[in-house]
C-alpha cells in the first residue's frame, strides 16, 4: 500500500475496531454525504452544537483540500518538490534552493508561467514556488497542519484573518481548483473552501485530534 494512504487506513481500522475516535467530530456519518470532488458548506456543520467540536469538524473538512496531493506536492518536507497524484519526486530534477524558488538555471519560473500552458501541459500560476520548509505538509496529519497554519512562526507571520484571506483569494492557492490538463482538482471551489476556513476561524480555530481524519 502506498505510504501516503497508510495513516488513513490505520485510522479506518481503529475506528472499525470500536476504538474511540478521541475528540474528533462525533458521528461524522451524521454529516451530509458528498462526492469526493465536493466540499461541504459551513451550514452542513450547524447541527454540531458544541462550538469547539464544530470548529474541529470544519477543519477536518478543510483538510480534504490541505492534504490533497495537488496542494501537498509543493509543501514538501525535504528539498525536492513532488508531483502527480502519486506524489512522485519532481522530474526534471529540481531543488528548493535558498529562497524556495529553485536554483540558478533551474528556477521554478524557468519553466512555470503565470498560468497553465495548454499545449505543453506545464502547470502555472502567479508566484509559482515551494512553500517554505516550516510549512511542510508532506506526511503531516490534519492536526499537525492545523497547528502549523495557526503558528505565526511557521505561517509567514500571518494572523488568523490573513490566513482566511490567503486561502480564500490567493491565486497560487486557487490553482488547486484549476490545475489544467488532465490533473485532478482539489474538492469544491476556492470560494467554498474560503467559507469553510472562515467558519473554522470564527468558531475558535480549534484543531482536530491527532488521529482524526475527514
Amino acid at each position, binding site marked *: 500500500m502506498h505510504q501516503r494512504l497508510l495513516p488513513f487506513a490505520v485510522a479506518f481500522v481503529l475506528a472499525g475496531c470500536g476504538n474511540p475516535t478521541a475528540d474528533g467530530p462525533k458521528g461524522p456519518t451524521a454529516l451530509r454525504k458528498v462526492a469526493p470532488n465536493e466540499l461541504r458548506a459551513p451550514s452542513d456543520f450547524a447541527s454540531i452544537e458544541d462550538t469547539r467540536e464544530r470548529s474541529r469538524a470544519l477543519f477536518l473538512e478543510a483538510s480534504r483540500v490541505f492534504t490533497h496531493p495537488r496542494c501537498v506536492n509543493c509543501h514538501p518536507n525535504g528539498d525536492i518538490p513532488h508531483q502527480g497524484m502519486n506524489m512522485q519526486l519532481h522530474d*526534471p*530534477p*529540481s*531543488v528548493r534552493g535558498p529562497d524556495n524558488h529553485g*536554483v*540558478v*538555471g*533551474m*528556477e521554478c*519560473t*524557468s*519553466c512555470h*508561467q*503565470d498560468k497553465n*500552458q495548454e*499545449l*505543453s*501541459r*506545464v502547470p502555472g500560476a502567479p508566484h509559482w514556488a515551494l512553500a517554505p520548509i516550516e510549512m511542510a505538509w508532506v506526511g503531516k496529519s490534519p492536526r499537525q497542519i492545523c497547528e502549523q497554519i495557526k503558528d505565526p512562526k511557521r505561517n509567514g507571520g500571518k494572523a488568523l484573518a490573513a490566513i482566511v484571506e490567503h486561502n480564500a483569494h490567493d491565486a497560487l492557492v486557487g490553482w488547486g481548483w484549476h490545475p489544467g490538463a488532465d490533473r485532478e482538482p482539489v474538492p469544491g471551489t476556492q470560494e467554498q473552501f474560503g467559507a469553510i476556513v472562515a467558519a473554522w476561524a470564527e468558531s475558535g480555530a480549534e484543531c482536530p485530534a491527532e488521529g482524526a481524519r475527514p
Partner: protein
Amino acid sequence: MSVRIRVNGVEKTLDVDPEMPLLWALRDVLGLTGTKYGCGQALCGACTVHLDGQVVRACVTPVRRADGHAVTTIEGLAPEGSHPLQRAWVELGVPQCGFCQAGQIMTAAALLKAKPKPSDDEIDQSMAGNLCRCGAYPRIRAAIRKAAGMPEGER
C-alpha cells in the same frame, strides 16, 4: 498584439500572438535558429535562453512574458563566440551531435554569473534540466570548471 523585446541588445517589435512560445518568435520570426526545439514541454533544456539574465525555457514561455524585457540567445552571448564557456567548449571538444549544446551553454553562463566558482553539486543542480542524449555530461562539467578557472576534474 505587438510585443517589444530587446533581443541580443537590439530592440525588436513583433506582431505576433502574445501566447506564441518565445522559441517560435526567436526561430521562425526572427530567424535566430541557434536556440533548439527539443521537447516543447520544458523537459530537455534545448531551448534555454536568458530573460533579463534569468534562465527560461523558451518553448513554454509565452512571448508576452518577454514584452518590455531583454532576451539573450546563444547568438548574443558573446561577440565572436568568445565567452569563456564557448572557448572551453571548443578546447575540450564538448559536443557530440551538438543539439543540446546551445541550451547547456546558456544555463552554464547563468550559473557562472551567479556563482563564479560553483561546486560539482551546484553544477549538477543547475544543469539538471539540460539533457544530453549523447551523454556528454562529464565533458560539460569539465568545461564549466575550466571556464570558471578551476581544475577540470574527470571527464
